[in-house]
C-alpha cells in the first residue's frame, strides 16, 4: 500500500480515486436505504441538480474564465426543452429527451456566448444577463413552450427509463445520481483533454493562448456550449426529479447568482468544489433553519429565525473566503494534506530528505 502510494506519479490521485469509489458505493449502496424521503427529496435531489449546474458553470467561469450570469436561463431552457420533447415526441425515451434538452440548451448557450468574442470580465457578465431576461420573457410570452397551459405552469411527466418508472423518492434520487455521475465523469474527461487545457490557457492569458495557437473563437463557444449543455441537463433534473412542476418565474436571476456563489465558495476550477459549494448552499441553510427552529422556535417566529439564519450564512461565507479565497475545496485539501503529512511523516522521513 505504502509503496504503491509512493510510486504513484502524482501524489494524491490514488487516495482520491479510493475516496471517489467509496463515495459512489455509499451514494448507491447506503443512502437509498437509510435516507428518509425528506433527506432524498428535499436535500439530496436538489443538491445533485445544483451541483451539476455549478459544474457546468465552473467549466465556463472557473476553467475558461468567462463569467456568466445566465445559468438560470439555461436551466429553464433545459427544463422546457425536455418537457416539449416529452409532450410532442411521445415515442422519444426519457434519456433521449434529457440529451436533447442538453443540446438545445447548448445551442442557446452558444448564441448568448457570441458577445464573449468581444467582451470580457464584468462586461461579459452583464451581457449574459440578456439570456436571463430573454429566456424568461420568451417562456412567459409564448404559450407554445408550456403547451398552451393558461397559467404557464407545466407538470413534469413521471421518470420512466426503459419501461421502469421511478416514482418514489429513492427512484428519483437514483436517476439524478446516475445522470450527475455520468455527466461529471464526461466533464472530468473533457477537462483532461486538449480542450480542457485550451480553456485554462484562455483563462490565464488570452493573448498568450492565441499566440500558442489556441483557437479562441472555437474554444470560447465550446466553453459556452458544454457549460450550457450540463446546466440544461441539470435543469431537467431540477424540473423532472425535484420540483416536478415548473414555471418560468422559478428560474430567476437569484438562481443564477446562487449557482455563481456555489462555484466561488466551493472553489473555482474544481469539480469537487462544485459539489462542496452546492452542499454548502443547499444543505447548510436547511440544517441551520431546522436547528434554529428546534432551539429557538418557541421564542421567535419563523421570520426572525429566517433573517438570523441569513446573517449566520453570510458571516460564514465571508469567513471562508477570507480564510481561503480559493474556496472550500482548498480549505479541505489543505486539511487533508496536513493529515496525510502527519500520518506519513514517520514513513517518509528516512527516504525523503
Amino acid at each position: 500500500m505504502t509503496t504503491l502510494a509512493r510510486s504513484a506519479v502524482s501524489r494524491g490521485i490514488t487516495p482520491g480515486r479510493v475516496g471517489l469509489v467509496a463515495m459512489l458505493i455509499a451514494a448507491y449502496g447506503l443512502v437509498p436505504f437509510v435516507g428518509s424521503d425528506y433527506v432524498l427529496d428535499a436535500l439530496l435531489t436538489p443538491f445533485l441538480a445544483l451541483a451539476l449546474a455549478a459544474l457546468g458553470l465552473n467549466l465556463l467561469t472557473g476553467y475558461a474564465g468567462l463569467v456568466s450570469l445566465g445559468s438560470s436561463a439555461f436551466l429553464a431552457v433545459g427544463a422546457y426543452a425536455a418537457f416539449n420533447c416529452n409532450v410532442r415526441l411521445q415515442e422519444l425515451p426519457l434519456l433521449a429527451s434529457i440529451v436533447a434538452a442538453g443540446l438545445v440548451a447548448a445551442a442557446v448557450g452558444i448564441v448568448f456566448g457570441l458577445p464573449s468574442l468581444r467582451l470580457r470580465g464584468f462586461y461579459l457578465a452583464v451581457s449574459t444577463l440578456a439570456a436571463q431576461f430573454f429566456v424568461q420573457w420568451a417562456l412567459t410570452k409564448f404559450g407554445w413552450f408550456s403547451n398552451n397551459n393558461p397559467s404557464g405552469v407545466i407538470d413534469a411527466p413521471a421518470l420512466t427509463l426503459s419501461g421502469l418508472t421511478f416514482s418514489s423518492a429513492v427512484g428519483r434520487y437514483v436517476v439524478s445520481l446516475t445522470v450527475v455521475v455520468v455527466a461529471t465523469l464526461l466533464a472530468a474527461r473533457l477537462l483532461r483533454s486538449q480542450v480542457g487545457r485550451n480553456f485554462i490557457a484562455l483563462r490565464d492569458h488570452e493573448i498568450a493562448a492565441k499566440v500558442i495557437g489556441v483557437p479562441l473563437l472555437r474554444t470560447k463557444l465550446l466553453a459556452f456550449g458544454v457549460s450550457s449543455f450540463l446546466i440544461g441537463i441539470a435543469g431537467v433534473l431540477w424540473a423532472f426529479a425535484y420540483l416536478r412542476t415548473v414555471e418560468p418565474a422559478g428560474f430567476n436571476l437569484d438562481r443564477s447568482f446562487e449557482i455563481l456563489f456555489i462555484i466561488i465558495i466551493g472553489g473555482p476550477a474544481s469539480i469537487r468544489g462544485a459539489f462542496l459549494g452546492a452542499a454548502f448552499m443547499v444543505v447548510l441553510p436547511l440544517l441551520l433553519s431546522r436547528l434554529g427552529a428546534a432551539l429557538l422556535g418557541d421564542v421567535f417566529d419563523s421570520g426572525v429565525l429566517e433573517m438570523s439564519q441569513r446573517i449566520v450564512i453570510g458571516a460564514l461565507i465571508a469567513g471562508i473566503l477570507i480564510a481561503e479565497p480559493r474556496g472550500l475545496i482548498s480549505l479541505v485539501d489543505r486539511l487533508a494534506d496536513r493529515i496525510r503529512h502527519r500520518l506519513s511523516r514517520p514513513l517518509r522521513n528516512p527516504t525523503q530528505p
Partner: protein
Amino acid sequence: MLISKSLRTAALAAAIAFGAALPVHADEQFFPLQSYRVGPYAAGGTGFFGGFIDYLNLINIRDGGVNGVKLTWEEGETQYEVERGLEVYERLKNHPGVAAWNPLSVGIAYAMIDRITKDKVPLITINHGRTDSTDGRVFPYVFPLLLNPYSETSGIVNYIASREGGADKLKGKKIVVLYHGSPYGKETIPIYKLLADKYGFSLEQIEVPHPGNEQQSQWLSIRRAKPDYVVLRGWGVMNPVALKTAQKVGFPIDHIIGNVWSNSEEDVIPAGEAAKGYVAITTQASGAEFPVLQEIIKTVYGAGKGNLDDKKRIGSVYHNLGIVNGILNVEAIRIAQQKFGKRTLTGDEVRWGFEHLQLDPTRVQALGAKGLFHSINVTWDNHEGDGRVTFQQWDGTKWKAVSDWIAPDWAFLRPIIEKSAAAYAAEHNIKVRTSDDTALSQ
C-alpha cells in the same frame, strides 16, 4: 475527498436525527404552515397566516380545541418560493395528524397537487389556485375554496354590469384588463375573452411585466383606448404604481376595479391620495366589528397570544382572509368529526369534511362571522363551494362595502371547468369519480 465525504455524512446524520425527532401526541390535529414572513410578499403572508393562527388559538383557548381535539401547527418559512415550500412540505408531511395544507401560493400549490393526492391530505387554496381543481371528480384533494380565478372574473363583470344598470348594458362598452406578467396574471385571459363574446363588450388585455414598478406606456395606451372600466389584476408593488399612474394620466379612479389580489390595505396605502375611490372585489369584508374578530381581540390578544405584531392590522383584508380560512378549516374538521368520531382524523377523513363543508348564513352567524363572509356550499364535485363576492371602496382610510353579496355566473363557468379538468384527467390517467364515495378512504 475523504473529508468532504465525512462532512456530508455528518450533515445527513444530522438531518435524519432531526427528521426522526417528531413528538407523538394523542388527539391533536396538526396544521403544517408554509408561511412567508420575509421576502417581497411578506405583507400578505404575515396577515394571512397571522389571521389563521389567531383563529386556531381562539378555538384552543375558548373551546379547548375542536370537541376536545387540540389544534397544533408549525411554521416553515417559504419566502413564497416553490423550492422552499416543497422543503417544508417534505419536512412536515410525516407529522402525525396532518389536517390540511394551506400554502397561499399558486406556485407551491401547483407543485403539491400530485404529492398531496398521493398522501391523501387536502390542499386548500382559498381565493386562488388552479381553476379546474374546482372539479372534485378529478381533483379529490384540492379545494379552491370560496373563489377560483374564473368565478372572480365573472363576479367582476357582473358587478360592472350592475353599475351600468344590467347585463344588456354591457354591449358596446369597453373594458381593459391590466394583468401581472406571470402565470397568476395570465390565468384569466381566456375567460375574459369568453365573457366579452357573451356580453358583447370590447376587450383589451394589457400585460405589465413583473414586478410592475413602471407602467407609463401601459397607461398611455389605456388613455388612447378610452375604456369605460379598467380591471386591475395586479400583485404586490404593481398595484399602488397602477393607481398612481392612473391618476397621472387622468383616468377616473372609481372606474378601476381591483381583483382579489389587488384589494388589500397594503395595495392602497402606498398610493396615498391616488387610491381614494378605488373599488376592489373581496370574499370577506374588512374591519374588526364582527363578533369573531372581537373575540379574537379579547381572548387571544388579551392573553398576549396574538400573532400580529402591529395591532393596527387586526381586521385588515389579509388578516380577515386568514380568519375566514381558519373558520373553514376548523368547520371541515368539526363536520368530519361528526361522521368519524371526536378524535384525531386522517387527512382523508378531513377531505370528507371539506366535501361536506356547508355553512349557510345562519351557521355563519352562529360562528360570529355574519357579514364577514356570506356562505359556502362545498360538495364532492364542487370544491369551490359557490362563494359570494362583495365590492369595497377605499375612502382614504378604510374599505367600505359598496355592493351586496354578488353571485358569479357558476352555471356558465362549470362546463369550461369540467372540460379543462377532463383534459387533466386524461393527461394524468386519473379515474374520474362518479359519486360521493367514501371508498377513497381505503
